[in-house]
């Protein structure tokens, strides 16, 4: 279903007619035949009330879960057909995560946390260290690389998490309520970092119910009852619109 368009940027992540049903006796259809393309360079937000299916969609976009029906394509590869090892490798290479609760490993330093994302990739310990340091510098925490999460503020922890997400140079960064646990000043700071992280090769996808955060994106996907009900281009314009037509066209 991928729209072949020589002018449009590459589709880095796509849901293709994806449904997710939970439970066996009492079935809950958390996601119902959703299709969505995320293209390189996009900055999109996914909004919707609780129970609208946005968390389920995030889990599937992040290949942390598998759909009951449909396909998840990472750079064109349908990951539902892959074995766990291969799927995990692809997830690690293509996707970076930022969580609401930061989810740093408490016994590791900031540097150690970032390095964790770079393990088992055939890097020498020195390369790993250098790349992790570079990522920390990028979020302005180079000087605090040897601090543990408990020694940092919430905003700093989230910046470490962002450094961890970008250290592998993924095609898409998935952020789950990245400002949900932060005060407004830190939230502003984190959103600015997201804005800065955008590059023609990398897409940013933020799941949130904070409309202010959602509106800072260039494309806004609205969810309700497991379906995409709106796919709007915001001030970003053209690029997002191309993805939107693909996503919506399939669903309706």
């Amino acid at each position: 279903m991928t729209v072949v368009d020589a002018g449009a940027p590459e589709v880095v992540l796509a849901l293709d007619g994806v449904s997710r049903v939970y439970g066996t006796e009492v079935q809950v259809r958390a996601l119902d035949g959703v299709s969505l393309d995320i293209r390189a360079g996009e900055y999109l937000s996914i909004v919707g009330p609780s129970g609208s299916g946005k968390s389920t969609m995030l889990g599937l976009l992040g290949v942390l879960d598998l759909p009951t029906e449909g396909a998840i394509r990472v750079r064109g590869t349908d990951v539902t057909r892959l074995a766990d090892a291969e799927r995990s490798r692809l997830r690690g290479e293509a996707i970076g995560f930022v969580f609401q609760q930061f989810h740093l490993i408490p016994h590791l330093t900031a540097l150690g946390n970032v390095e964790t994302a770079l393990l088992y990739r055939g890097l020498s310990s020195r390369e790993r260290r250098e790349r992790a340091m570079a990522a920390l510098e990028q979020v302005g925490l180079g000087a605090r690389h040897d601090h543990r999460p408990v020694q940092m503020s919430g905003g700093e922890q989230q910046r470490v998490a962002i450094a961890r997400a970008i250290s592998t140079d993924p095609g898409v960064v998935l952020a789950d309520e990245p400002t949900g646990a932060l005060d407004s000043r830190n939230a502003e700071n984190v959103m600015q970092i997201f804005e800065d992280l955008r590059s023609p090769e990398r897409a940013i996808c933020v799941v949130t119910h904070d409309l202010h955060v959602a509106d800072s994106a260039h494309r806004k996907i609205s969810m309700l009852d497991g379906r995409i009900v709106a796919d709007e281009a915001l001030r970003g314009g053209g690029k997002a619109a191309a993805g939107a037509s693909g996503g919506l066209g399939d669903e309706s």
Partner: protein
Amino acid sequence: MRRFRELVGVATGGLTARKIRTALIMLGPILGVAAIVAAIGINESSKGHLKAKLQELGTDLIVVNASAGMGFGQDPVIEAAAVARVSRLPDVTAVTGTRQLSDIVTVPFAGAEDYYRAFPVPVIASGLDLPATLEVPMVSGRFLNDYDHDSGARVAVIGRDLADEYGYLAGEPRTIELNGLQYGVVGVLDWVLLEPSMDSAVFVTFTSAVDDWELDDPDPSRLYVRAPTNTAMVAQEIPTVVSLGGPDGANASVPTDLLDAQSQVDESLNNLTKMMGGLALVVGGVGIANVMSISVIQRSSEIGIRRALGHSRGTIAVQFLFEALVVGVFGGIIGALVGAGVVWGVAEQRGYTMVLSVAGLAGWALVSVGVAVVAGLYPSSKAARLEPLETLRLG
């Protein structure tokens, strides 16, 4: 290789972050391995000690005990003529007869009865060649001699432990009181390894025994026979030589055979201690499985993050298996060292030569590694099965 190093790094990182917990789960393999190594080491060392002792004693001493042949109602003895026949056997180099006297209260000096009666002191009538036959030196003084025997003088030689007990000083002129009769102590006999009861005994001549203790005849009830060649054969023919085809008047044994048997008997003790140590290891393994299972639940968020960062189920399983492995390796090594230390301490204290096989140490450390890895299988598979979505709480 790089991946292996990374896994070891992650595993040790996880372990050092929880030092007390790690120390506690390591305690299982440490105690198990230490117990086994110590038990086996102490056993081997004492066996080695026994063997050295056997070497020292010589394996050519035969002990002949009179047995009730024809004479009923009285203590069996070996007649003088039979003793002479034994000493004429071609392979025999020395023979000494002894006879233990009964009902003699021994005290170091008059009036000490109340205190010393608690210690039963064997009084032995002995031939004059006892030290030579047993190959035991005198600590001080001399043994009973021909003059003592012929004159019937009241002289005695005492064992080394008795000398200590009674507070005798070397060369000090002292007496000992046997049923109220004063005997002069002329010498102290060194420890008799084959007959530890002699260490606290009093030796007198057969003449004194007959004169003072109404012994009917100066015949021994036991012979010590030294036969450097054909020892076993000599031991076999002595009963016949003593009783000349009549009903057996004596039985002969080689006591070092008993010691040899003793070192064999230890084998069952050895197996028991191995089993106990093995049990400790298994319990340690259960402890590892237990604590690690709880740890997996507590670290579910960490596992979820690692999965999100691209670590596969297999990698997570191996990471936790490596933590178990590290516990097993260090537990095994520390346990082996502790066990070796215990063996060294015991050997030092008891005067053994320490016998410890390095292969054995390594072997038991490896067993601990095996136990730890097996124990880690369940928690690691549990960690691998965790669904990242359930632990990360999205949205």
